[in-house]
């Protein structure tokens, strides 16, 4: 070997260096232990075994997919098994919920902390998957999509009412028991003139103590209201949940509480639709959903429920009232 071919040797340790130098620092070329090499070979053997046992290789041209491996491992199958396992675990709790509701009503759920937390968790999950698109993640609703947390219910806010609404939907013609009512489009269908609509709009606003213009023709509005609206919304404007006629006397307006929004609703006649979920969701899930929505805070009789109403609240309400 020629002199210049010899690798440089570190003077202190007497060990060859790699010949690389960075600012005077050189790297010793110490040999790896031989067993390290064997580990490398062993990992190659392992890789071959892995390819035999596990799905690893794309199928040759003309075939679909990939090799399955001797273990026939599939993450998709694992997920299916995990889901079935989940169903089996949840089954008893869903059954307990159904039984509790059937026997003692939804308030009975409140007496069992574990069942209550399960109901809220299961309901929240199903709500997020199926309902949140329209009603919002927390059930707060949007204009035209009811807020499920307040205490105003168009079709009733008892547990059974909520449950029926979920089962059969609103104006969902495919379901025989769907909730159905229709408000005429007074303006679009030219049932009322522009002046008449303005007058009745002002009158409706006075029902919930909203401020109206001094020029409002409330006498005309009242007359039109009694003629066209009172049959559904009742003489005093409190509505009728049995026919889905909203209460016009409170602070809650599904389609907005400004004069323009109320006028527009009278003009076009709102026609909100909610699908029926009976065929889409299993019965226990619908029960959990109904209980969840009921317990979001707006469930009727929940507010008045003796047990749920704390003394502090009662006192406050009294002093505020």
């Amino acid at each position, binding site marked *: 070997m020629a002199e210049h071919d010899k690798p440089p040797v570190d003077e202190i*340790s*007497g*060990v*060859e260096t790699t010949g690389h130098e960075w600012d005077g620092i050189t790297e010793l070329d*110490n*040999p*790896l*232990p*031989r*067993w*390290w*090499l064997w580990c490398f070979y062993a990992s190659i053997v392992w890789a071959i075994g892995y390819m035999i046992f596990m799905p690893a290789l794309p199928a040759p041209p003309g075939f679909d997919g990939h090799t399955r491996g001797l273990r026939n491992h599939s993450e998709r199958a694992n997920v299916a098994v995990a889901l079935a396992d989940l169903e089996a675990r949840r089954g008893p709790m869903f059954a307990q919920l159904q039984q509790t509701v059937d026997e003692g009503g939804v308030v009975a759920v*409140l*007496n069992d*902390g574990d069942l*209550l*937390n399960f109901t*809220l968790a299961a309901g929240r999950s199903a709500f997020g998957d199926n309902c949140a698109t329209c009603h*919002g*993640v*927390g*059930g*707060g*609703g949007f204009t035209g999509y009811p*807020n499920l*947390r*307040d*205490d*105003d219910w168009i079709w009733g806010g008892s547990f059974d009412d909520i449950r029926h609404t979920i089962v059969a939907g609103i104006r969902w013609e495919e379901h025989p028991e769907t909730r159905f009512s229709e408000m005429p489009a007074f303006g679009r269908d030219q049932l009322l003139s522009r002046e008449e609509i303005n007058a009745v709009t002002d009158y409706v606003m006075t029902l919930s103590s909203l401020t109206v213009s001094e020029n409002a023709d409330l006498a005309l509005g009242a007359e039109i209201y009694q003629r066209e609206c009172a049959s559904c919304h009742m003489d005093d404007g409190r509505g009728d949940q049995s026919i889905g006629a909203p*209460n016009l006397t*409170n*602070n*809650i307006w599904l389609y907005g509480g400004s004069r323009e929004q109320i006028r527009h609703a009278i003009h076009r006649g709102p026609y909100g639709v909610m699908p029926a979920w009976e065929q889409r969701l299993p019965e226990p899930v619908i029960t959990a959903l109904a209980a969840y929505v009921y*317990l*979001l*805070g*707006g469930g009727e009789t929940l*507010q008045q429920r003796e*047990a*749920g*109403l*704390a*003394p*502090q*609240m*009662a006192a*406050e*309400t009294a002093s*505020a009232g």
Partner: protein
Amino acid sequence: MNLIHNRPGASGGDAADGVARLDVDAVNAVGQRELYQKRQQIYPKLVHGRFRLAKWVFLVLALGVYYLLPFVRWDRGPEGPSQAVLVDFPNARFYFFFIELWPQEVYYITGLLILAALALFLVTALFGRVWCGYACPQTVWTDLFIAVERLFEGDRNKRILLDRAPMSFNKAWRKTGKHVVWLAIAAATGGAWILYFHDAFDLLRDFFTGQAALTAYIFFALLTFTTYSLAGTLREQVCTYMCPWPRIQGALTDRESLAVTYRTDRGEPRGRHKKGESWDGRGDCIDCKACVAACPMGIDIRQGPQLECIGCALCIDACDDIMDKVGRPRGLIAYDTDDNIARRKAGEPARWRFVRPRVVLYAVLIAGVCAIMLAGLVSREELGLHADRDRNPNFVVLTDGSVRNAYTLNVQNKARVTRHLSLAVSADPQPGVQLLGARDELVLEIGPDRTRTFQVFLTLPREAALRHSIPVMFTITDPQTGETAFTQDVFVTGAAP
């Protein structure tokens, strides 16, 4: 070189009168270059002395604690586990005598790890690699395995001869016996490990009746295998090639850190010594290589500080023994500093400075972390409260115009009794409080050692909800013990900010 190292006995003649010169070379001596280095078998020679004794004592203590600790009991009442040290994964709890930690308190474990690292830094800065030499599991178990090896195959010379000899009944039973005992120790090691994760007595019964969880058997097998292979077969290869610590230690020591050191100022020039010869003009090292033969890493300490040296100090014992025989003072190899070697060579007295900036820094850091952890442990509450306000929707307007906010209260009861906590809400103006599921008053019932969530609604009349956001304080109180926990949140009214 392999052959030289493995030659048994004293074929090298005498190093001094009555002292054989062992024919042994360091495994890391620069030799024939190979692309991949063949491993050289090391046959460490048994030594007697202070450090060997200290290592035996520590070995018995450390292994005793490791094997027996799972069986130590601790009374936590009927609800809690009775094992003093237990990592309970299914219930997400860690128990250490009087301490019980929940998963969200993992920062105590972090603190412990930081403390361990700092303690290692401090000890290394002061005394070099005493962790490696005395306390590292790799060292302790390897020491034990070498002791078993000597029991069956004899000391260095006998082992070398036995390995050279053709297979015979004698060789077969000695080798078999060694591996059987090794496997038994390894199995006990793996067996003790799993006892830290389940009640020891229950698990032992289930383990031998085949009813324990699969993970128990898997970890048992895994730790049996690693103990057997790392302590029995791989030994010094682990320290030299697998462990990062030898590479890190260089940054933690300085010229005044103690280390197992060959005192070149006293030892050189080395050479054979004949009886009656003067010791003047020569070093005390008679080049007998007893230090090399004793080294479990197979190195020559006389080459100076080396990556491979684990600081086990067995060469000190070996050399002291020789010095006694040749009538020279002990301590040719000793715990010493690089600085002292240089000072003695320059004719200055040795000095020992343990208070150095890095030592002080590590000590202060350790004290700081200890103080923080202690303060945390002492002030640890057995009651926890956290409030999550619903943000979607931010607030709800009710038919009468009042405004309502919803909150999820997360309550942690770390005590081992069921509690009935009274909830109080304070804000200005004071809202109405409704607790979902409450019977007659604002009482939160929560079982022992549990976390539970509660739904709370706060309502303000329209005329009171004037400010955009109102601070709210939730307080829970245990009437039995007087313990309280509180958390702050806000009430959002929807009024313009």
